[in-house]
């Protein structure tokens, strides 16, 4: 709390402590105000594992593990493919979708799948029908996210799975840019491939 630091005799150690303490006070004040205004500006003091606490969309498969809906193109009165699919509730943030449920949606062609990985990974192999929207590209182009035409279908994002969390980040961006039904496939491409499900690519 003394003279400006261009003086040779100043004590940077003590001034660093002053900056640190002031920063702590401002941070605390900002967060208290932010908590009352916008969830983006004020957050809980104690962190929680977002992926673990992400709500999960359960499969609507029957006890035999088979989807309860079917389609028959020869029978126009058949139950539409989307009939047995679980409803996607609006919980104010993206929802996790497990492999089995994703497969149900995939088979019914009832999802818009977005690959959040880099273009080269996408080119090699991907979930069939997925579009490529690398996270770093998406984040710098908000209009691209807002204007994404999903054909009224819910969006599912995925990436490299495991330690790759791009899919959740991308899902959050999509959700905040106005898409209401955004799902995250946390298992990612490796799990899909390991399950022996179809892939496409060069």
């Amino acid at each position, binding site marked *: 709390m003394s003279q400006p630091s261009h003086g040779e005799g100043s004590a940077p150690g003590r001034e660093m402590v002053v900056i640190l303490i002031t*920063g702590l006070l401002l941070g605390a004040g900002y*967060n208290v105000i932010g908590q009352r205004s916008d969830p983006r500006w004020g*957050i809980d*003091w104690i962190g929680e594992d977002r992926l673990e606490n992400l709500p999960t969309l359960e499969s609507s498969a029957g006890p035999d593990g088979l989807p309860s809906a079917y389609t028959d193109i020869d029978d126009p009165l058949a139950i539409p493919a989307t009939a047995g699919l679980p409803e996607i509730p609006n919980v104010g943030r993206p929802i996790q979708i497990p492999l089995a449920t994703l497969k149900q949606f995939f088979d019914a062609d009832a999802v818009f799948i977005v690959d959040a990985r880099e273009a080269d990974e996408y080119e090699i192999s991907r979930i069939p029908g997925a579009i490529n929207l690398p996270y*770093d590209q998406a984040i710098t182009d908000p209009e691209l996210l807002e204007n994404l035409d999903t054909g009224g279908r819910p969006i599912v994002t995925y990436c490299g799975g495991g330690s790759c969390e791009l899919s959740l980040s991308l899902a959050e961006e999509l959700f905040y840019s106005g898409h209401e039904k955004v799902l995250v496939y946390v298992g990612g491409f490796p799990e899909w491939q390991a399950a022996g499900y179809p892939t496409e690519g060069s």
Partner: protein
Amino acid sequence: MKGLLTHRRTVRVCQVLIGLVFAAAALGKLGDLDSFATQVHYFRLVPVAVENLVAIFLPWVELLAALALILGVRARAGALLTAAMMALFTVAVSQAVLRGLDFECGCFGTADGSRVGVLKLAENLVMLAVAVIASLRPRS
């Protein structure tokens, strides 16, 4: 060489440069604390319970250090703090690269969308060097 590095002007230019970078980084984070908390999580460096505290306080320390540097008030303290933070960030990015983690770094909030990788590491090392020069005692 040492003479040039500790020249009053060199030190001052480095202080303003690193100050501007830190100000931009801090403001980017403050605009969306929620996202920044997620980015902190991706580094897997601190316990989950502490991640939000990092997100709440770090941008303000960055901003104050940046202001000290830009305005030239307690600039040396600001420079030492930024150098320490840069060292810490470099360690954070290195461990992420070594562990093969792939995520958006959140270094400037989510504004730049840059991913953690070797390029980010190189960028960090350059900024660390600038911060160290900025914290040298100028020869007058």
